[in-house]
Every structure is written in structure tokens, then in C-alpha cells.
């Protein structure tokens, strides 16, 4: 296992507790800041919101790294094991990009449908889909 002594590893655990608690606290503060709870003029500011969101996501990833590598002892395992668990996770990077893009596309389709539904209906002219000078036979029964 790890080469740390008992006392050292106990210290690592205390450090881990403080780190995770502080990072979680910071995340909550950033989240509330981004939504304009602290400075009300920032409310609805999309750039601030996006930046804060990105920051919180990065901090969460750091927390995940810390839990896996420190608490779950991945740091002290053979590299092959670590890679066989961590590398497949990279697939999720693509999944996130693809599905968020997809969700956005659904939204723009819906918006487009609503926009067109709201347009005033224009009565279609008889045979308007046919090119001009096309001979049309009437149905006489």
C-alpha cells in the first residue's frame, strides 16, 4: 500500500477533510455569487453565470480527483489499473458535448416551429406548386 507512516496518513486524512469542506463551501459561494445573490446588479448576467458555472465544474472535478486518488488510494495503485479506470471516463467528454449540443438543437427546432405557427396563414393558390404554363385537366366526373 502507501509508504506513508500511520501518523502521516492520519494527517493526510485531516487535510482531505478540510480541503473537501472548504472547496464545497467555495463552490456554494461562487454559485450564489453567479446568480447575483451578493451583488444584485449581476443578476441575469449570462457571462458571469457561465464563468461561475465553469469554475464550479472545475472545482467539482478537482474534488472527484482528490477522492479517487487520495481516499480511494488510486495514487498508490499500479499505473495500469489507474489508466484502465480513468481513460474510459474520457468518453464522457464527448458524451457531454454531443448531448448538450443535441438538447440545444431540440430547443431551436421548437422555437422555429413556434415562430412558424405564429405566422399569419397565407392561402395557397390553386396549383401554385406547379410551374407556370402547365396544362391542367379538370376532372369532369
Amino acid at each position, binding site marked *: 500500500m502507501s509508504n506513508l507512516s500511520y501518523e502521516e496518513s492520519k494527517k493526510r486524512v485531516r487535510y482531505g477533510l478540510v480541503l*473537501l469542506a472548504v472547496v464545497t463551501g467555495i463552490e456554494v459561494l461562487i454559485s450564489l455569487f453567479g446568480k447575483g445573490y451578493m451583488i444584485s446588479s449581476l443578476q441575469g448576467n449570462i457571462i458571469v453565470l457561465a464563468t461561475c458555472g465553469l469554475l464550479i465544474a472545475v472545482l467539482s472535478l478537482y474534488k472527484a480527483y482528490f477522492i479517487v486518488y487520495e*481516499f480511494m488510494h488510486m495514487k498508490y495503485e499500479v499505473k495500469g489499473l489507474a489508466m484502465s479506470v480513468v481513460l474510459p471516463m474520457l468518453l464522457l467528454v464527448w458524451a457531454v458535448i454531443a448531448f448538450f449540443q443535441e438538447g440545444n438543437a431540440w430547443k431551436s427546432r421548437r422555437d422555429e416551429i413556434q415562430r412558424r405557427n405564429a405566422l399569419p396563414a397565407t392561402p395557397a393558390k390553386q396549383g401554385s406548386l406547379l410551374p407556370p404554363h402547365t396544362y391542367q385537366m379538370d376532372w369532369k366526373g
Partner: protein
Amino acid sequence: MANTDTALEHHVHELDHQGDDAWSGAQSPFKVSYGKIMMWYFLLSDAFTFAGFLITYGALRFSSPTWPVPDFVFSTDPFGISDYFGKAPLIFVTFMSFLLIISSVTMVRGVQEGHRENKNGVLIWMVLTIFGGLGFLGCQAWEWTNLIGKENMSLTRNTFGTHTAEGYYLDHEGKKSAETFREGESYLIHRHAPGGHSAEHGAQHEYKQGDQAGYLLDEKSFVHRKFVYTAGAKKGVTQTEQFGPAAFGALFFFITGFHGFHVFSGVVFLTIIALNVASGVYVTRKNGYEMVEKIGLYWHFVDLVWVFVFLVFYLL
């Protein structure tokens, strides 16, 4: 019996030194036991399941024109905690997160004591971990009860809607009231208790069924208030509060429920293994309480997933 064991151990020992035979079953790869490797790969697959759910949440959120603001939806807490702080959004879930982090830390301590073959140490830290897990489940039970019982959220109904522009509410008689709202602000559609006044806010109005001047009371006795936007495309048009995107309720209950079920099964397994520790089963194995280490991996994973559930549902 003792003879057979010795013979087998001797055989295994021989195979250990045959590098090219490593995959024939005698020596586990990556220098960890099979049990731990399989726990890692189970957790990997479970991570993909959770990732699938959370990405679904993201995709549906992106596809909706509005989405309930989490710090409005989750601004409730038990025992009137927010009465002391004024408005304190997210305080309750932050407390829940701390609980899980602390129980993760006690788990690490348990595993460490296991490496020292300290039976009582393992037991104490495992019991503390179990309490952490139970505390988290209790908090979640309160949160769900509040959402279902008081705020009338269900799998198919989301009582939290969101305004797309700024404006003001109409009062009971359909005249302009002093109550205004900003763009992107969420509202909760309350249920009118029949024969009495509204259960929440203690409003004294008697509501009439149907479409009224200032509100709409639907057949399930939800009071949809009326409002007017003062900006945007629908400026000046009187509108009625609509339910929010229905997927929100289903996603919330399904994902936090799935996570809560993981916590629950974790507590069950921790209890079983703690009982085994107490009975001295692992003392005889002399493998540094590896079973505790394996359930520890699972327990940290549950904490890890909560990091992302917390991120996606509450912070963003």
C-alpha cells in the same frame, strides 16, 4: 486440511514467480486482489450509469426554454433554519454534502485502522460512517417529503415555473399589484386547500373554481396566478402561471433516488461488514481487512457521485 493448504500455497508461490503465467489465474493483474479490481470495474460501470442520467438532465435542460432556478426550488430547510439567517438558499443541501464528506473521511480512517489490524478501531470508524450515511438519508427523506407533500411536485408535474421577462402580478380582483418579478425568476404554484385558505402563506382569500380575473383555479385546485410582462415580446399581455418543464420532477426524483438507493445499499453493506468485523471474521483472514477496503471504495464512490449530483442539480 492443513496439508492441502500448504500444498496450494506452495503452488501459488511458485506461480507468482512465473511472470509469463500471470494470466492463468494464479496471480491477479495490477498487483491488487481480484476483489478490488472487480470493485473498481463495477464502480466504473456505475459511473457511466450516473453520467448517463446527469447528461440526460443537461440535455433536457438545454432543450427547455425555461428551467426552475435550483436555489429557489431548494431554498427550504427543516426546523426554520433560514429564519435565523434570513434567506439562506442551498444551506440544507450543503449540510447534506458535508455529512457525506465526513462519512467518507471516517471510512478512510476505518480502512487505515484495518491495515494495522486494529479491530476496535475499524469498528468505531465504520459505525460513525454508518451514522453519516443514515443522517444523509434522513435529510433526503425530509427533502423529498417537503417537495412531494408541501410543494406538490411529482414525477409528471413540476409546480416550479420560471418567468421569461420582468413584470408584475395581478391581485385577487385582477388589478395591478405591488408584487413584481424579474426575468428568470422562478415561482411556485400553490395548491388551494378546499374549504379553507391556502395552506401556504396563510392567504385569506376564498378562491373560486375556474378562470377568474386575478387567477385560475384548475380542477386539481392549483392556483395559477395572473401576471403581466412589462418587457419582451409578450409585453402588456395578461398571462397565467404555467407549470414548469415536467421533466424536472422525474429527473430529480429518479437521479437523487438512484443515488439515495446507493447510499441505502451502502449503509446495509457497511452494517453487514461491521457485524463481521465485530465477530472477528476478518481477524483470521489476516489480509489487512480487505473487505473493509472494498466497501470503502464503494462508499467513496457514493460520495463522488454526490459531488456531481450536487453540482448539476443544486449549484448550476
